[in-house]
Protein backbone atom coordinates (compact mmCIF):
# COMPACT_ATOMS: atom_id res chain seq x y z
CA UNK A 1 0.00 0.00 0.00
CA UNK A 2 2.81 2.35 0.94
CA UNK A 3 4.63 1.97 -2.32
CA UNK A 4 1.42 2.58 -4.23
CA UNK A 5 0.67 5.85 -2.50
CA UNK A 6 4.26 6.97 -2.47
CA UNK A 7 4.54 6.61 -6.22
CA UNK A 8 1.21 8.31 -6.76
CA UNK A 9 2.46 11.17 -4.65
CA UNK A 10 5.62 11.28 -6.70
CA UNK A 11 3.60 11.60 -9.87
CA UNK A 12 1.50 14.40 -8.39
CA UNK A 13 4.64 16.22 -7.29
CA UNK A 14 6.25 15.87 -10.70
CA UNK A 15 3.19 17.18 -12.49
CA UNK A 16 2.84 20.08 -10.07
CA UNK A 17 6.48 21.07 -10.43
CA UNK A 18 6.44 20.97 -14.20
CA UNK A 19 3.13 22.83 -14.30
CA UNK A 20 4.74 25.60 -12.32
CA UNK A 21 7.64 26.08 -14.73
CA UNK A 22 5.73 28.50 -17.00
CA UNK A 23 4.95 30.58 -13.92
CA UNK A 24 8.64 31.17 -13.35
CA UNK A 25 9.86 31.78 -16.84
CA UNK A 26 8.57 33.23 -20.05
CA UNK A 27 11.61 32.12 -21.99
CA UNK A 28 10.53 30.46 -25.20
CA UNK A 29 13.71 28.45 -25.27
CA UNK A 30 13.18 26.92 -21.86
CA UNK A 31 9.50 26.24 -22.41
CA UNK A 32 10.24 24.65 -25.76
CA UNK A 33 12.93 22.49 -24.21
CA UNK A 34 10.59 21.26 -21.49
CA UNK A 35 7.81 20.66 -24.00
CA UNK A 36 10.03 18.62 -26.31
CA UNK A 37 11.47 16.66 -23.43
CA UNK A 38 7.95 15.81 -22.27
CA UNK A 39 7.03 14.85 -25.82
CA UNK A 40 9.99 12.47 -25.98
CA UNK A 41 8.97 11.14 -22.57
CA UNK A 42 5.45 10.38 -23.82
CA UNK A 43 6.77 8.33 -26.72
CA UNK A 44 9.15 6.48 -24.44
CA UNK A 45 6.42 5.78 -21.90
CA UNK A 46 4.16 4.47 -24.63
CA UNK A 47 6.88 2.11 -25.84
CA UNK A 48 7.64 1.08 -22.29
CA UNK A 49 4.16 -0.29 -21.74
CA UNK A 50 4.52 -2.88 -24.47
CA UNK A 51 8.29 -3.26 -24.39
CA UNK A 52 9.18 -2.82 -20.75
CA UNK A 53 6.14 -4.21 -19.00
CA UNK A 54 5.02 -6.55 -21.75
CA UNK A 55 8.42 -7.69 -22.86
CA UNK A 56 7.48 -7.31 -26.52
CA UNK A 57 10.08 -5.13 -28.22
CA UNK A 58 8.55 -3.22 -31.07
CA UNK A 59 10.95 -1.75 -33.61
CA UNK A 60 8.19 -0.11 -35.60
CA UNK A 61 6.29 1.83 -32.96
CA UNK A 62 6.13 4.74 -35.37
CA UNK A 63 3.29 2.80 -36.95
CA UNK A 64 0.98 4.00 -34.17
CA UNK A 65 2.52 7.44 -34.00
CA UNK A 66 1.98 8.00 -37.69
CA UNK A 67 -1.55 6.66 -37.58
CA UNK A 68 -2.46 9.10 -34.83
CA UNK A 69 -0.74 11.94 -36.65
CA UNK A 70 -2.42 11.34 -39.98
CA UNK A 71 -5.85 10.87 -38.41
CA UNK A 72 -5.39 14.10 -36.48
CA UNK A 73 -4.45 15.96 -39.65
CA UNK A 74 -7.00 14.37 -41.96
CA UNK A 75 -9.87 14.68 -39.50
CA UNK A 76 -9.32 18.42 -39.49
CA UNK A 77 -8.42 18.93 -43.13
CA UNK A 78 -10.78 16.54 -44.83
CA UNK A 79 -13.30 15.97 -42.07
CA UNK A 80 -13.53 19.53 -40.91
CA UNK A 81 -13.56 18.30 -37.34
CA UNK A 82 -12.51 20.21 -34.27
CA UNK A 83 -8.98 19.22 -33.20
CA UNK A 84 -10.13 18.02 -29.79
CA UNK A 85 -12.58 15.69 -31.45
CA UNK A 86 -9.88 14.70 -33.91
CA UNK A 87 -7.71 13.82 -30.94
CA UNK A 88 -10.27 11.32 -29.73
CA UNK A 89 -10.35 9.79 -33.19
CA UNK A 90 -6.58 9.78 -33.47
CA UNK A 91 -6.11 7.97 -30.18
CA UNK A 92 -8.87 5.48 -30.92
CA UNK A 93 -7.56 4.93 -34.43
CA UNK A 94 -4.06 4.19 -33.22
CA UNK A 95 -5.42 1.87 -30.58
CA UNK A 96 -7.47 0.08 -33.22
CA UNK A 97 -4.40 -0.42 -35.41
CA UNK A 98 -2.50 -1.56 -32.35
CA UNK A 99 -5.16 -4.12 -31.51
CA UNK A 100 -5.23 -5.39 -35.08
CA UNK A 101 -1.48 -5.79 -35.29
CA UNK A 102 -1.49 -7.38 -31.87
CA UNK A 103 -4.30 -9.76 -32.70
CA UNK A 104 -2.44 -10.91 -35.79
CA UNK A 105 1.01 -11.26 -34.31
CA UNK A 106 0.11 -12.60 -30.89
CA UNK A 107 -2.41 -15.04 -32.29
CA UNK A 108 0.43 -16.65 -34.17
CA UNK A 109 2.74 -16.50 -31.20
CA UNK A 110 5.26 -14.10 -32.62
CA UNK A 111 7.76 -12.95 -30.08
CA UNK A 112 11.27 -11.66 -29.63
CA UNK A 113 13.17 -10.81 -32.77
CA UNK A 114 10.37 -11.92 -35.05
CA UNK A 115 7.92 -9.59 -33.37
CA UNK A 116 10.40 -6.71 -33.65
CA UNK A 117 10.89 -7.42 -37.35
CA UNK A 118 7.18 -7.66 -38.09
CA UNK A 119 6.44 -4.34 -36.41
CA UNK A 120 9.21 -2.82 -38.50
CA UNK A 121 7.67 -4.31 -41.62
CA UNK A 122 4.23 -2.95 -40.77
CA UNK A 123 5.64 0.53 -40.20
CA UNK A 124 7.39 0.36 -43.54
CA UNK A 125 4.23 -0.77 -45.32
CA UNK A 126 2.33 2.17 -43.90
CA UNK A 127 5.12 4.52 -44.83
CA UNK A 128 5.07 3.35 -48.41
CA UNK A 129 1.27 3.53 -48.50
CA UNK A 130 1.29 7.06 -47.11
CA UNK A 131 3.89 7.95 -49.73
CA UNK A 132 1.84 6.58 -52.59
CA UNK A 133 -1.72 7.45 -51.72
CA UNK A 134 -3.06 10.88 -52.66
CA UNK A 135 -5.37 11.52 -49.74
CA UNK A 136 -2.50 11.43 -47.30
CA UNK A 137 -0.80 14.05 -49.38
CA UNK A 138 1.63 11.45 -50.70
CA UNK A 139 5.25 12.55 -50.43
CA UNK A 140 4.36 16.16 -49.84
CA UNK A 141 2.59 15.38 -46.62
CA UNK A 142 -0.19 17.27 -44.93
CA UNK A 143 -0.25 20.75 -43.44
CA UNK A 144 -2.90 22.05 -41.11
CA UNK A 145 -3.50 25.77 -41.34
CA UNK A 146 -2.36 28.08 -38.59
CA UNK A 147 -5.23 29.22 -36.39
CA UNK A 148 -4.25 29.81 -32.82
CA UNK A 149 -6.94 29.33 -30.23
CA UNK A 150 -7.67 26.95 -27.43
CA UNK A 151 -10.65 25.57 -29.30
CA UNK A 152 -8.34 24.88 -32.19
CA UNK A 153 -5.66 23.27 -30.04
CA UNK A 154 -3.05 25.67 -31.31
CA UNK A 155 -1.34 27.97 -28.87
CA UNK A 156 0.50 31.23 -29.38
CA UNK A 157 3.14 30.40 -26.85
CA UNK A 158 4.81 27.16 -25.98
CA UNK A 159 3.07 27.34 -22.62
CA UNK A 160 -0.17 26.04 -24.02
CA UNK A 161 1.50 23.11 -25.73
CA UNK A 162 3.48 22.39 -22.61
CA UNK A 163 0.30 21.95 -20.60
CA UNK A 164 -1.16 19.83 -23.36
CA UNK A 165 1.77 17.44 -23.43
CA UNK A 166 1.96 17.48 -19.67
CA UNK A 167 -1.60 16.22 -19.70
CA UNK A 168 -0.66 13.33 -21.96
CA UNK A 169 2.45 12.54 -19.94
CA UNK A 170 0.41 12.54 -16.74
CA UNK A 171 -2.01 10.10 -18.30
CA UNK A 172 0.90 7.90 -19.32
CA UNK A 173 2.37 8.08 -15.83
CA UNK A 174 -0.95 7.10 -14.31
CA UNK A 175 -1.32 4.19 -16.73
CA UNK A 176 2.20 3.03 -15.88
CA UNK A 177 1.49 3.40 -12.18
CA UNK A 178 -1.62 1.35 -12.66
CA UNK A 179 0.42 -1.36 -14.38
CA UNK A 180 2.65 -1.59 -11.37
CA UNK A 181 -0.22 -1.94 -8.92
CA UNK A 182 -2.97 -3.83 -10.62
CA UNK A 183 -3.86 -7.37 -11.46
CA UNK A 184 -3.58 -6.64 -15.17
CA UNK A 185 -0.09 -5.27 -14.69
CA UNK A 186 0.91 -8.29 -12.61
CA UNK A 187 -0.42 -10.60 -15.32
CA UNK A 188 1.36 -8.62 -18.03
CA UNK A 189 4.72 -8.82 -16.27
CA UNK A 190 4.17 -12.50 -15.53
CA UNK A 191 3.66 -13.17 -19.23
CA UNK A 192 6.80 -11.18 -19.94
CA UNK A 193 8.88 -13.11 -17.44
CA UNK A 194 7.60 -16.60 -18.18
CA UNK A 195 4.64 -17.16 -20.42
CA UNK A 196 4.15 -20.86 -19.67
CA UNK A 197 4.29 -20.38 -15.93
CA UNK A 198 1.75 -17.58 -16.30
CA UNK A 199 -0.58 -19.80 -18.28
CA UNK A 200 -0.32 -22.50 -15.65
CA UNK A 201 -1.72 -20.14 -13.02
CA UNK A 202 -4.60 -18.87 -15.07
CA UNK A 203 -3.25 -16.00 -17.14
CA UNK A 204 -4.42 -15.65 -20.74
CA UNK A 205 -1.31 -14.37 -22.53
CA UNK A 206 -3.19 -13.32 -25.64
CA UNK A 207 -5.68 -10.96 -24.01
CA UNK A 208 -3.05 -9.56 -21.70
CA UNK A 209 -0.64 -8.73 -24.51
CA UNK A 210 -3.50 -7.34 -26.55
CA UNK A 211 -4.40 -5.00 -23.71
CA UNK A 212 -0.82 -3.85 -23.51
CA UNK A 213 -0.47 -3.10 -27.19
CA UNK A 214 -3.80 -1.29 -27.13
CA UNK A 215 -2.67 1.02 -24.32
CA UNK A 216 0.76 1.47 -25.85
CA UNK A 217 -0.50 2.34 -29.30
CA UNK A 218 -3.16 4.70 -27.94
CA UNK A 219 -0.55 6.76 -26.10
CA UNK A 220 1.74 6.67 -29.10
CA UNK A 221 -1.12 7.94 -31.23
CA UNK A 222 -1.62 10.80 -28.80
CA UNK A 223 2.03 11.65 -29.37
CA UNK A 224 1.43 11.70 -33.10
CA UNK A 225 -1.59 13.96 -32.75
CA UNK A 226 0.41 16.28 -30.52
CA UNK A 227 3.17 16.48 -33.11
CA UNK A 228 0.71 17.58 -35.76
CA UNK A 229 -0.72 20.31 -33.53
CA UNK A 230 2.68 21.68 -32.63
CA UNK A 231 4.35 21.53 -36.02
CA UNK A 232 1.21 21.77 -38.16
CA UNK A 233 2.79 19.33 -40.56
CA UNK A 234 3.21 15.62 -41.12
CA UNK A 235 4.77 13.52 -43.87
CA UNK A 236 5.36 9.78 -44.36
CA UNK A 237 8.96 9.88 -43.24
CA UNK A 238 8.26 11.63 -39.97
CA UNK A 239 5.08 9.67 -39.35
CA UNK A 240 6.24 6.12 -40.02
CA UNK A 241 9.98 6.38 -40.36
CA UNK A 242 12.54 4.73 -38.13
CA UNK A 243 13.44 8.00 -36.41
CA UNK A 244 10.40 8.05 -34.17
CA UNK A 245 10.53 4.31 -33.53
CA UNK A 246 14.14 4.54 -32.46
CA UNK A 247 13.64 7.64 -30.34
CA UNK A 248 10.91 6.00 -28.32
CA UNK A 249 12.77 2.79 -27.72
CA UNK A 250 16.20 4.23 -26.97
CA UNK A 251 14.84 6.64 -24.40
CA UNK A 252 12.97 3.83 -22.64
CA UNK A 253 15.98 1.50 -22.62
CA UNK A 254 18.39 4.18 -21.51
CA UNK A 255 16.11 5.26 -18.69
CA UNK A 256 15.22 1.75 -17.63
CA UNK A 257 12.44 -0.33 -19.08
CA UNK A 258 9.71 -1.75 -16.95
CA UNK A 259 9.92 1.10 -14.47
CA UNK A 260 7.71 4.07 -13.71
CA UNK A 261 10.23 6.85 -14.17
CA UNK A 262 12.73 5.17 -16.49
CA UNK A 263 11.27 6.44 -19.75
CA UNK A 264 10.89 9.98 -18.44
CA UNK A 265 14.45 9.90 -17.14
CA UNK A 266 15.78 8.49 -20.36
CA UNK A 267 13.91 11.00 -22.49
CA UNK A 268 15.21 13.92 -20.45
CA UNK A 269 18.77 12.62 -20.48
CA UNK A 270 18.77 12.01 -24.22
CA UNK A 271 17.15 15.37 -24.85
CA UNK A 272 19.79 17.14 -22.80
CA UNK A 273 22.45 15.15 -24.62
CA UNK A 274 20.98 16.15 -27.96
CA UNK A 275 20.96 19.78 -26.88
CA UNK A 276 24.58 19.67 -25.75
CA UNK A 277 25.49 17.99 -29.01
CA UNK A 278 23.72 20.66 -30.98
CA UNK A 279 25.58 23.38 -29.11
CA UNK A 280 28.92 21.66 -29.59
CA UNK A 281 28.59 20.54 -33.18
CA UNK A 282 25.87 22.63 -34.66
CA UNK A 283 23.16 21.20 -36.81
CA UNK A 284 25.15 18.35 -38.29
CA UNK A 285 22.81 15.87 -39.94
CA UNK A 286 22.84 12.57 -38.16
CA UNK A 287 24.99 13.54 -35.21
CA UNK A 288 22.09 13.18 -32.80
CA UNK A 289 21.28 9.69 -33.94
CA UNK A 290 24.91 8.65 -33.81
CA UNK A 291 24.96 9.64 -30.18
CA UNK A 292 21.67 7.82 -29.55
CA UNK A 293 23.10 4.72 -31.18
CA UNK A 294 26.31 4.86 -29.18
CA UNK A 295 24.41 5.44 -25.95
CA UNK A 296 22.13 2.52 -26.74
CA UNK A 297 25.05 0.19 -27.34
CA UNK A 298 26.85 1.35 -24.20
CA UNK A 299 23.78 1.03 -22.04
CA UNK A 300 23.01 -2.47 -23.28
CA UNK A 301 26.61 -3.49 -22.74
CA UNK A 302 27.21 -1.98 -19.34
CA UNK A 303 23.95 -0.83 -17.82
CA UNK A 304 21.21 -3.07 -19.20
CA UNK A 305 18.73 -2.01 -16.55
CA UNK A 306 19.13 1.58 -17.65
CA UNK A 307 19.67 4.60 -15.49
CA UNK A 308 16.75 3.78 -13.23
CA UNK A 309 18.32 0.43 -12.57
CA UNK A 310 21.70 1.92 -11.72
CA UNK A 311 21.31 1.13 -8.06
CA UNK A 312 20.42 -2.48 -8.68
CA UNK A 313 23.21 -2.92 -11.24
CA UNK A 314 25.83 -1.53 -8.89
CA UNK A 315 24.54 -3.68 -6.05
CA UNK A 316 24.73 -6.85 -8.11
CA UNK A 317 28.27 -6.06 -9.18
CA UNK A 318 29.21 -6.33 -5.54
CA UNK A 319 27.09 -9.34 -4.65
CA UNK A 320 28.12 -12.93 -5.28
CA UNK A 321 24.78 -14.18 -6.51
CA UNK A 322 22.81 -12.91 -9.43
CA UNK A 323 23.74 -11.11 -12.62
CA UNK A 324 22.77 -7.63 -13.76
Amino acid at each position, binding site marked *: *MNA*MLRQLGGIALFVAVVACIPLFTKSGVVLNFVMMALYAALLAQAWNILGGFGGQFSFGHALFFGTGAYIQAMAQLQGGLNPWLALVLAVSGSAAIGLMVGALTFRYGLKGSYFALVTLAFAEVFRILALSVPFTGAGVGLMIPLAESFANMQFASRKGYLYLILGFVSAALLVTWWLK*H*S*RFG*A*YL*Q*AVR*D*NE*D*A*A*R*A*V*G*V*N*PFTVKLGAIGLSSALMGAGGAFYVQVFQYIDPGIAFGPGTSVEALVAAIVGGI*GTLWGPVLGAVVLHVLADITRNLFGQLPGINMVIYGVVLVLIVMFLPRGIAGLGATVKSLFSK*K*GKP
Partner: protein
Amino acid sequence: MTSALLSINGLSRSFGGLKAVQNVSLSVPTGSLTALIGPNGAGKTTLFALMSGFLKPDSGSVHFDGADITGRAPHINAVNGMTRTFQIVQPFASQTVRENIAVGAHLHVKSRPTALLEAERIAAQVGLLKQIDQPAGELTVAGRKRLELARALATQPRLLLLDEVLAGLNPQEIAEMMPVVRGIADSGITVLMIEHVMQAVMNLAAHVWVLAQGQLIAEGSPNEVTSNEKVVEAYLGHGTAARLRAAELGKARA
Protein backbone atom coordinates in the same frame (compact mmCIF):
# COMPACT_ATOMS: atom_id res chain seq x y z
CA MET B 1 -16.42 -44.93 -3.85
CA THR B 2 -15.12 -41.40 -4.29
CA SER B 3 -15.73 -39.94 -7.70
CA ALA B 4 -12.87 -39.21 -10.03
CA LEU B 5 -11.86 -35.57 -10.17
CA LEU B 6 -9.65 -36.20 -13.18
CA SER B 7 -10.01 -39.08 -15.58
CA ILE B 8 -8.12 -39.66 -18.78
CA ASN B 9 -9.09 -42.17 -21.40
CA GLY B 10 -6.92 -43.67 -24.08
CA LEU B 11 -4.68 -40.62 -24.19
CA SER B 12 -2.01 -40.75 -26.88
CA ARG B 13 0.53 -38.33 -28.22
CA SER B 14 3.42 -38.76 -30.64
CA PHE B 15 6.20 -36.45 -31.70
CA GLY B 16 7.22 -37.40 -35.18
CA GLY B 17 8.05 -41.06 -34.86
CA LEU B 18 8.33 -41.04 -31.09
CA LYS B 19 5.25 -42.34 -29.25
CA ALA B 20 5.58 -40.29 -26.08
CA VAL B 21 2.27 -41.35 -24.56
CA GLN B 22 0.39 -44.43 -25.72
CA ASN B 23 -3.20 -45.14 -24.84
CA VAL B 24 -3.00 -44.17 -21.18
CA SER B 25 -6.10 -44.27 -19.02
CA LEU B 26 -6.37 -43.47 -15.33
CA SER B 27 -8.69 -41.91 -12.78
CA VAL B 28 -7.62 -39.63 -9.97
CA PRO B 29 -10.10 -39.84 -7.07
CA THR B 30 -11.21 -36.60 -5.47
CA GLY B 31 -9.28 -35.73 -2.34
CA SER B 32 -6.52 -38.28 -2.92
CA LEU B 33 -2.75 -37.94 -2.90
CA THR B 34 -1.44 -40.08 -5.72
CA ALA B 35 1.77 -40.48 -7.66
CA LEU B 36 2.90 -41.07 -11.20
CA ILE B 37 6.28 -42.79 -11.43
CA GLY B 38 8.44 -44.31 -14.10
CA PRO B 39 11.94 -44.22 -15.50
CA ASN B 40 13.28 -41.13 -17.24
CA GLY B 41 11.77 -40.52 -20.63
CA ALA B 42 8.67 -42.53 -19.78
CA GLY B 43 6.39 -39.69 -20.79
CA LYS B 44 5.26 -38.50 -17.38
CA THR B 45 5.76 -34.81 -17.99
CA THR B 46 4.17 -35.18 -21.41
CA LEU B 47 1.18 -36.71 -19.70
CA PHE B 48 0.95 -33.73 -17.36
CA ALA B 49 1.15 -31.41 -20.33
CA LEU B 50 -1.69 -33.30 -22.00
CA MET B 51 -3.81 -33.21 -18.85
CA SER B 52 -3.33 -29.52 -18.21
CA GLY B 53 -3.73 -28.38 -21.79
CA PHE B 54 -0.18 -27.45 -22.70
CA LEU B 55 -0.28 -30.15 -25.35
CA LYS B 56 -3.16 -31.46 -27.41
CA PRO B 57 -3.48 -35.25 -27.57
CA ASP B 58 -3.54 -37.13 -30.85
CA SER B 59 -6.38 -39.22 -29.49
CA GLY B 60 -8.18 -39.89 -26.25
CA SER B 61 -9.91 -37.59 -23.81
CA VAL B 62 -9.40 -35.76 -20.54
CA HIS B 63 -12.29 -35.22 -18.15
CA PHE B 64 -12.12 -32.90 -15.18
CA ASP B 65 -14.94 -32.95 -12.67
CA GLY B 66 -17.16 -34.62 -15.22
CA ALA B 67 -16.55 -32.11 -17.99
CA ASP B 68 -14.58 -32.89 -21.15
CA ILE B 69 -11.58 -30.59 -21.13
CA THR B 70 -9.52 -32.31 -23.82
CA GLY B 71 -7.18 -29.80 -25.40
CA ARG B 72 -8.55 -26.90 -23.40
CA ALA B 73 -6.09 -24.04 -22.85
CA PRO B 74 -4.05 -24.23 -19.63
CA HIS B 75 -5.20 -20.91 -18.28
CA ILE B 76 -8.83 -21.95 -18.53
CA ASN B 77 -8.04 -25.18 -16.73
CA ALA B 78 -6.39 -23.15 -14.01
CA VAL B 79 -9.49 -21.00 -13.69
CA ASN B 80 -11.52 -24.18 -13.31
CA GLY B 81 -9.26 -25.55 -10.60
CA MET B 82 -6.41 -27.49 -12.17
CA THR B 83 -2.93 -26.06 -11.70
CA ARG B 84 0.37 -27.64 -12.62
CA THR B 85 3.96 -26.98 -11.62
CA PHE B 86 6.99 -27.50 -13.81
CA GLN B 87 9.80 -30.00 -13.52
CA ILE B 88 12.32 -27.32 -14.43
CA VAL B 89 11.23 -24.49 -12.17
CA GLN B 90 9.87 -21.41 -13.89
CA PRO B 91 9.99 -18.45 -11.55
CA PHE B 92 9.26 -14.91 -12.61
CA ALA B 93 12.89 -14.20 -12.00
CA SER B 94 12.86 -10.42 -11.93
CA GLN B 95 10.01 -10.28 -9.41
CA THR B 96 10.05 -10.89 -5.68
CA VAL B 97 8.76 -14.03 -4.02
CA ARG B 98 5.71 -12.12 -2.87
CA GLU B 99 5.00 -10.80 -6.35
CA ASN B 100 5.44 -14.27 -7.81
CA ILE B 101 2.92 -15.85 -5.49
CA ALA B 102 0.57 -12.92 -5.93
CA VAL B 103 0.24 -13.75 -9.62
CA GLY B 104 -1.27 -17.04 -8.57
CA ALA B 105 -3.43 -15.39 -5.93
CA HIS B 106 -4.84 -12.99 -8.49
CA LEU B 107 -6.77 -15.84 -10.05
CA HIS B 108 -9.38 -15.36 -7.38
CA VAL B 109 -8.47 -11.96 -6.04
CA LYS B 110 -8.77 -8.80 -8.09
CA SER B 111 -7.39 -6.32 -5.58
CA ARG B 112 -3.63 -5.95 -5.65
CA PRO B 113 -3.11 -5.29 -1.93
CA THR B 114 -5.23 -8.33 -1.05
CA ALA B 115 -3.31 -10.53 -3.45
CA LEU B 116 -0.02 -9.40 -1.94
CA LEU B 117 -1.30 -10.19 1.56
CA GLU B 118 -2.57 -13.56 0.43
CA ALA B 119 0.87 -14.20 -1.02
CA GLU B 120 2.38 -13.63 2.38
CA ARG B 121 0.03 -16.15 3.97
CA ILE B 122 0.90 -18.80 1.43
CA ALA B 123 4.61 -18.07 1.68
CA ALA B 124 4.34 -18.81 5.38
CA GLN B 125 2.55 -22.03 4.60
CA VAL B 126 5.42 -23.35 2.49
CA GLY B 127 8.18 -21.88 4.64
CA LEU B 128 9.23 -18.98 2.41
CA LEU B 129 8.25 -16.14 4.71
CA LYS B 130 11.83 -15.06 5.41
CA GLN B 131 12.64 -14.60 1.74
CA ILE B 132 9.35 -13.06 0.77
CA ASP B 133 10.78 -9.80 -0.53
CA GLN B 134 13.81 -11.29 -2.25
CA PRO B 135 13.96 -11.50 -6.04
CA ALA B 136 12.96 -14.99 -7.11
CA GLY B 137 16.12 -15.27 -9.14
CA GLU B 138 18.18 -15.24 -5.96
CA LEU B 139 16.55 -18.27 -4.33
CA THR B 140 18.24 -21.63 -3.95
CA VAL B 141 16.87 -24.64 -5.79
CA ALA B 142 14.88 -25.68 -2.76
CA GLY B 143 13.53 -22.16 -2.42
CA ARG B 144 12.47 -22.09 -6.04
CA LYS B 145 10.69 -25.41 -5.67
CA ARG B 146 8.78 -24.02 -2.73
CA LEU B 147 7.99 -20.91 -4.73
CA GLU B 148 6.69 -23.02 -7.58
CA LEU B 149 4.49 -24.85 -5.11
CA ALA B 150 3.35 -21.67 -3.39
CA ARG B 151 2.41 -19.96 -6.61
CA ALA B 152 0.34 -22.96 -7.65
CA LEU B 153 -1.30 -23.13 -4.21
CA ALA B 154 -2.26 -19.49 -4.44
CA THR B 155 -4.59 -20.32 -7.30
CA GLN B 156 -6.74 -22.29 -4.85
CA PRO B 157 -6.69 -25.39 -7.04
CA ARG B 158 -8.92 -28.39 -6.64
CA LEU B 159 -6.35 -30.53 -8.43
CA LEU B 160 -2.64 -29.85 -8.09
CA LEU B 161 -0.30 -31.50 -10.56
CA LEU B 162 3.18 -31.48 -9.02
CA ASP B 163 5.99 -32.29 -11.41
CA GLU B 164 9.01 -33.59 -9.46
CA VAL B 165 8.66 -31.03 -6.73
CA LEU B 166 11.36 -32.85 -4.74
CA ALA B 167 13.93 -33.20 -7.52
CA GLY B 168 17.25 -31.62 -6.78
CA LEU B 169 16.65 -31.36 -3.06
CA ASN B 170 19.00 -32.80 -0.45
CA PRO B 171 17.65 -35.28 2.13
CA GLN B 172 16.96 -32.62 4.72
CA GLU B 173 15.12 -30.44 2.25
CA ILE B 174 13.08 -33.46 1.16
CA ALA B 175 12.23 -34.21 4.77
CA GLU B 176 11.07 -30.61 5.19
CA MET B 177 9.03 -30.56 2.00
CA MET B 178 7.15 -33.81 2.46
CA PRO B 179 4.94 -32.62 5.33
CA VAL B 180 4.09 -29.55 3.28
CA VAL B 181 2.78 -31.73 0.48
CA ARG B 182 0.94 -33.91 2.98
CA GLY B 183 -0.55 -30.76 4.52
CA ILE B 184 -1.82 -29.59 1.14
CA ALA B 185 -3.54 -32.90 0.51
CA ASP B 186 -5.00 -32.91 4.01
CA SER B 187 -6.54 -29.51 3.39
CA GLY B 188 -8.73 -31.07 0.75
CA ILE B 189 -6.76 -30.45 -2.44
CA THR B 190 -6.39 -33.45 -4.72
CA VAL B 191 -2.72 -33.96 -5.48
CA LEU B 192 -1.15 -35.96 -8.28
CA MET B 193 2.62 -35.91 -8.22
CA ILE B 194 5.30 -37.08 -10.59
CA GLU B 195 8.11 -38.25 -8.40
CA HIS B 196 11.43 -40.03 -8.56
CA VAL B 197 12.12 -39.78 -4.85
CA MET B 198 10.75 -43.18 -3.79
CA GLN B 199 10.77 -42.24 -0.12
CA ALA B 200 8.12 -39.63 -0.86
CA VAL B 201 6.09 -41.97 -3.03
CA MET B 202 6.05 -44.71 -0.43
CA ASN B 203 5.19 -42.34 2.42
CA LEU B 204 2.73 -40.01 0.78
CA ALA B 205 0.91 -41.67 -2.07
CA ALA B 206 -2.23 -43.72 -1.58
CA HIS B 207 -2.16 -44.96 -5.16
CA VAL B 208 0.61 -45.15 -7.73
CA TRP B 209 0.62 -45.38 -11.52
CA VAL B 210 3.72 -46.55 -13.34
CA LEU B 211 4.51 -45.24 -16.78
CA ALA B 212 7.23 -46.74 -18.97
CA GLN B 213 7.90 -45.89 -22.60
CA GLY B 214 4.65 -44.02 -22.79
CA GLN B 215 2.50 -46.86 -21.54
CA LEU B 216 0.85 -47.57 -18.23
CA ILE B 217 2.45 -50.81 -17.06
CA ALA B 218 1.15 -51.09 -13.52
CA GLU B 219 -0.89 -49.41 -10.83
CA GLY B 220 -1.76 -50.01 -7.23
CA SER B 221 -0.62 -49.16 -3.74
CA PRO B 222 3.03 -48.19 -3.37
CA ASN B 223 3.92 -51.60 -1.97
CA GLU B 224 2.11 -53.50 -4.70
CA VAL B 225 3.78 -51.46 -7.38
CA THR B 226 7.31 -51.65 -6.11
CA SER B 227 7.15 -55.42 -5.83
CA ASN B 228 5.69 -55.69 -9.32
CA GLU B 229 8.15 -57.45 -11.64
CA LYS B 230 7.27 -55.41 -14.66
CA VAL B 231 8.00 -52.23 -12.71
CA VAL B 232 11.36 -53.50 -11.55
CA GLU B 233 12.23 -54.42 -15.10
CA ALA B 234 11.18 -51.03 -16.41
CA TYR B 235 13.63 -49.33 -14.05
CA LEU B 236 16.43 -51.84 -13.94
CA GLY B 237 16.24 -53.67 -17.22
CA HIS B 238 14.92 -56.83 -18.71
CA GLY B 239 15.51 -59.97 -16.68
CA THR B 240 16.45 -58.08 -13.55
CA ALA B 241 13.49 -59.36 -11.59
CA ALA B 242 14.48 -62.95 -12.27
CA ARG B 243 18.10 -62.26 -11.39
CA LEU B 244 17.06 -60.56 -8.16
CA ARG B 245 14.93 -63.52 -7.24
CA ALA B 246 17.72 -65.93 -8.03
CA ALA B 247 20.08 -63.89 -5.90
CA GLU B 248 17.60 -63.97 -3.03
CA LEU B 249 17.25 -67.72 -3.35
CA GLY B 250 21.01 -68.11 -3.53
CA LYS B 251 21.42 -66.07 -0.37
CA ALA B 252 18.71 -68.07 1.40
CA ARG B 253 20.45 -71.34 0.60
CA ALA B 254 23.89 -70.16 1.59
